[in-house]
């Protein structure tokens, strides 16, 4: 008896919603385009485009299709099929490869620990004490704030051996949430076609050479600059750091071989979380 009445009330509520949905005429025009765009968008509401959610982004796109060149949806850029549908819906063509970006962590890990940190397990809290518990003030703390914020499971993860965040370039869609999350500003968005990754962020060269802070950071020896046969590496005298010309680079990997600190890495090689955990 009681169950019957409860079920009846529940059914009545459902039916009322159904009838309102069916019977109330759609008086408002102009929402169709927004709905169409919204259906193409990933719907994960990551917020990387700067809008509160995918629907708000679809609304903005429907009003101004050019917006996609300024703040593109990084998830759609990774997927050729939905990108094509979005291009058709908006009536414009896009150069996806030029706009697509990947996150790159400018640290090689394993900088020496200078004190025992026993506080809250987030990089933000740890970074407030002497820029973190590592000898190098620009070293990845490896507590995983970037992992927390990443909307793609496994696109960024902590290497347990080196204690450094590593990006899975296949999964990363370049939303840039980790870039703003990292308290030490170690992560940068680079074009997806980047070939050589520079894994150090130690800047105040004239103070102390990087060698004193970390055994894996750049020591400004210019070996990579001399080794490069394609003139793809330029030496920036201001910062005393190599600058890589991705177009000229032929991926001969000579700079990586010659680097005494192993500060350079092949960015085209995809690293997987699963491999590291089992290894």
């Amino acid at each position, binding site marked *: 008896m009681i169950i019957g009445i409860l079920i009846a009330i529940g059914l009545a509520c459902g039916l009322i*919603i159904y009838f309102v949905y069916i019977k109330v005429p759609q008086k408002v025009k102009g929402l169709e385009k927004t709905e169409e765009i919204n259906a193409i968008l990933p719907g994960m509401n990551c917020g990387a485009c700067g809008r509160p959610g995918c629907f708000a982004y679809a609304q903005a796109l429907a009003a101004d299709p050019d917006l996609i060149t300024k703040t593109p949806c990084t998830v759609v850029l990774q997927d050729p099929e939905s990108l094509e549908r979005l291009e058709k819906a908006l009536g414009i063509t896009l150069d996806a490869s030029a706009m697509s970006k990947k996150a790159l962590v400018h640290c090689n890990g394993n900088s020496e620990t200078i004190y025992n940190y026993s506080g809250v397990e987030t990089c933000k809290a740890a970074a407030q004490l002497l820029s973190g518990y590592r000898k190098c003030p620009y070293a990845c703390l490896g507590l995983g704030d970037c992992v927390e914020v990443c909307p793609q499971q496994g696109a960024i993860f902590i290497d347990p051996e080196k204690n450094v965040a590593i990006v899975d370039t296949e999964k990363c869609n370049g939303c840039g949430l980790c870039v703003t999350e990292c308290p030490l500003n170690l992560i940068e968005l680079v074009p997806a076609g980047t070939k050589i990754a520079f894994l150090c962020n130690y800047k105040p060269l004239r103070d102390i050479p990087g060698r004193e802070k970390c055994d894996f950071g750049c020591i400004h020896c210019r070996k990579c600059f001399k080794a490069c046969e394609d003139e793809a590496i330029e030496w920036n005298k201001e910062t005393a750091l190599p600058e890589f010309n991705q177009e000229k680079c032929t991926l001969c990997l000579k700079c990586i071989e010659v680097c005494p600190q192993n500060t350079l890495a092949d960015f085209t090689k995809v690293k997987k979380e699963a491999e590291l955990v089992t290894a």
Partner: protein
Amino acid sequence: MTELIAIFLGMVLINNFILVRFLGLCPFFGVSKQLNSAISMGIAVTFVMSIASLATWLIYQRILIPFDIEYMYIVIFILVIATLVQIIELFIKKTNLGLYFSFGIYLPLITTNCAVLGITLINVTQDYSLTGSIVAALGGGLGFTLVLAMMSGIREKLEMANIPKSMKGLPIAFIIAALLGLAFLGFGGMI
């Protein structure tokens, strides 16, 4: 008539939803950063509260009491409020797009706002009549809007104020909320 006025004033000032009953605290801090959004949230809550009071009063008096299942009222009320919010959202989306976008995310959020469930439960426990419960809902909604508007006005000013870094944002807002609550206690002996 005097009874209705007493209910209304009591809901707006003396038993204010936020500061005295501690209901609807989530939007109190979440939506009180800007005056505009605070007021539209307040209006949306008032609207849903009034309609929910009407619907739940009818269901409670006409269905639950005759069938002797008053004790199921919380479950039924939650269901009714969720349905109502869905219907209102659908209706507004189909008829008035400007209103729909100005409500934005707040309308679906009201489903989980305890002030709405609170007013329906208060109506039951206080044994209000139909007009009484609608007046109570209007008063409660007005009190909610009033406090939200006051809070957002203060917080807009606080953005400009020179306060210690550790107190910026929520900490100072909590202190302001406590002071507002103390001020509203002053209405306590009115009726």
